[in-house]
C-alpha cells in the first residue's frame, strides 16, 4: 500500500517537470532570482556609491542635471591624493593595523590557553568558567566605555594605542574562546591519551598535537578578531584624543568632517580605503568567516 503510494508520488514528481517546465521556470525566476537580485542590489549599492563617489571630480559630484550620477565621465584620483598627502591618513592606517594585529595576537594567545584548559584539562567547575566567559561576551561596550575611560586614565594609558590593544581583548577573548572550545571538542581525545601514555607532557601535547589540528579554528578566530578590532569604534573614540593616534574609523569621522561643507569625495575615498584591508582579508578567507560565524552561533 505504502509502496504503491510512494511509486505514484515518484511518478508524479517525474511527470511534473515535463508538463510544467516553463511554468516552474518562470515561477523560479519570480520567487527566487528576482528577490535575490533585489537583495544583492540593495546590499551592495552603498559600496558602489562609495566607490564611484571617491573617483568623481567635485564638479560631477554636485551636478546631477548634466552628469549621470550613476557613472563617472572623467574619473580622478584627486580625492585619494588629497587623503594620502594632505592628511595623516597613512599614519591612521598604520595605527589601526598595529592595534588590530596587537590585540588579535594577545587575545589569540589568551583564548587558546583558556579554551585548552576548559575543554581538555577538565577540572571541577570548568563548565562554569566557560559560561562566565560566554556571559562576558554579552556585556556590550556601550555600558563599559565610561568606567573604562577612567581605568585607562588611572593606568596612564590615555591617548595611547596600547590602551586599545589591552582593551579590545574584552570582546575578542570571549568570542575566540568559544570558537576554539568548539574546535578542540572536535579533536579526538584518544590522540591526547596516546601521547600521555607515551610520556609526553601536557604542554608538549598542546604544542605538538592539539594546536596543529586546531589550525583552521585558529585562523578563523584570528581573522575574526582582526576584523572586529579593525571595525571597533566607541573605545577608540573615547580613549584617543590626539589626531595622530586615531584609528581610521574614528579619524575619518572626527578629522575629515570639518565645517559645514562636507568633502564628500575625500570622505568616501577615506571610507573606501579604510574598508579595503578588511575586504581583501575577507575575500582571501571567506570560508573561515562563514564557518566561524555559524560555528559561534551554533555553540
Amino acid at each position, binding site marked *: 500500500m505504502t509502496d504503491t503510494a510512494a511509486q505514484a508520488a515518484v511518478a508524479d514528481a517525474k511527470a511534473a517537470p515535463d508538463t510544467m517546465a516553463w511554468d516552474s521556470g518562470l515561477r523560479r525566476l519570480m520567487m527566487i532570482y528576482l528577490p535575490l537580485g533585489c*537583495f544583492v542590489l540593495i546590499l551592495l549599492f552603498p559600496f558602489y556609491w562609495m566607490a564611484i563617489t571617491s573617483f568623481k571630480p567635485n564638479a560631477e559630484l554636485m551636478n546631477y542635471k548634466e552628469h549621470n550620477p550613476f557613472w563617472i565621465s572623467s574619473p580622478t584620483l584627486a580625492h585619494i591624493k588629497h587623503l594620502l598627502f594632505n592628511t595623516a591618513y597613512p599614519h591612521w592606517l598604520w595605527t589601526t593595523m598595529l592595534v588590530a594585529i596587537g590585540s588579535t595576537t594577545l587575545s589569540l594567545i589568551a583564548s587558546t590557553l583558556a579554551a585548552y584548559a576548559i575543554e581538555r584539562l577538565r577540572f571541577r567547575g570548568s563548565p562554569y568558567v566557560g559560561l562566565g566567559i560566554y556571559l562576558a561576551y554579552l556585556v556590550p561596550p556601550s555600558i563599559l566605555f565610561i568606567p573604562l575611560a577612567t581605568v585607562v586614565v588611572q593606568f596612564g594609558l590615555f591617548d595611547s594605542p596600547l590602551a586599545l590593544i589591552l582593551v579590545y581583548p574584552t570582546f575578542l577573548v570571549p568570542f575566540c574562546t568559544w570558537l576554539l572550545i568548539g574546535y578542540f571538542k572536535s579533536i579526538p581525545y584518544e590522540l591526547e591519551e596516546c601521547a600521555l601514555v607515551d610520556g609526553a607532557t*601536557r604542554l608538549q601535547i598542546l604544542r605538538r598535537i592539539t594546536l596543529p589540528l586546531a589550525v583552521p579554528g585558529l585562523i578563523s578566530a584570528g581573522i575574526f578578531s582582526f576584523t572586529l578590532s579593525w571595525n571597533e569604534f566607541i573605545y577608540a573614540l573615547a580613549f584617543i584624543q590626539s589626531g595622530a593616534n586615531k584609528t581610521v574609523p574614528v579619524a575619518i569621522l572626527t578629522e575629515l568632517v570639518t565645517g559645514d561643507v562636507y568633502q564628500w569625495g575625500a570622505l568616501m575615498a577615506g571610507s573606501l580605503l579604510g574598508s579595503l584591508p578588511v575586504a581583501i582579508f575577507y575575500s582571501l578567507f571567506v570560508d573561515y568567516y562563514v564557518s566561524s560565524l555559524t560555528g559561534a552561533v551554533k555553540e
Partner: protein
Amino acid sequence: MSVTTLSSHVLAQRQPNWLVRLFDYKPFLIVMCLAPAIGLLTVFLTYPLGLGIWLAFTDTTIGRRGIYVGLENFQYLLTDSLWWNAVFYSVLYTAVATFGKFALGFWLALLLNNHFPFKSLLRAIILLPWIVPTVLSALAFWWIYDPQFSIISYLLVDVLHWRDSNIDFLGSPWPARFSLIAANIWRGIPFVAISLLAGLQTISPSLYEAAMLDGASAWQRFRYITFPMMMPILAIVMTFSIIFTFTDFQLVYAITRGGPGNSTHLLATLAFQRGIAGGELGEGAAIAVSMIPFLVFATLFSYFGLARRKWQQGEAND
C-alpha cells in the same frame, strides 16, 4: 644495543627538570592557562562593570573625584525628558530594526537555501555589509541621505517623477529616526541571513519528504517543520541582535550624532554626550547603567531559548 638506548631514553624522561615537572602538574597548568584570559577580563571587564555601577551613584566629573550621592542621578534622569526620549527611541529602534532584520534575513536565508549557480560567491558577497567597518558604511549612508544630492531623491524626483521635491531624510525627527533604522536593518540582514542559513542546512530533508508524502503544502511545511526546527537558533541570534541593537552607538553617532534636536539619541549616544563629551562621568554612567535591566531581560530570553533547545535535541536525537 636498542635496549640500552631505550632505557636511557626512559631515564631522561623520568627525570625532567623541575620546571617541566611544575608545568605538568595539572592544577598549576590550569591556573597558568586561565590566568591571561581571566586576568584581562577581570581588569578590563568585570572591574569596569563594577566601577560603572559605582560611578552611577556618585557625582564624578572628568578631573574630579566624586562623592556618593545615592540615587540622585537616577532621580534626575526620571525627570529628564531627553532621557525618556532616548529610552523611547532605543526601544523603537530595537523593535523595528530587529523585526525588519529578521523578516528580511529569514527570507534571504530561505532564498539562499535553494540550489542555483555561484551560490558560495553570492553568500560571500552578501556578508560584505557586515564585514566593512560600520562607521564607514554609515558615512556612505550619510551621503545617500544628503538633503541636496541624495541619490534616492534623485531617483524619485528626476527619474521616476514620483515626487516633486527632495526628501529631507535627516532634517526632521521622524524621517531621521526611520532613516537610521533602515541603515541598521541594511547592516544587520547579512548576519541574520547567514546564521539562519546554517540552521536551515541542519534540518534533515527526510522531514520534508515525509511531510510531502503526507500531502503538506509549502506553507504547512514552513509552519510545522522549518519554523519549529529553527526556533532554538532564532532565539540565540535574536538575543545577540537585540542586545547589540539596543546598545548601538556607531551608526547614530556617525550619521546624526543624536540630532535633529536630540530626537535620535539612543541611550548609548546620550551616555557618551553627557559622560565623555560633557564630562559628567557620574551621570553618563547612570545612563549606561539604566540599559542593564533591558539587557538582563534579553539574556534571560536567551537562557530560555537554550533550555528549550536542549529539550528539543533530547527528543530528536534519541
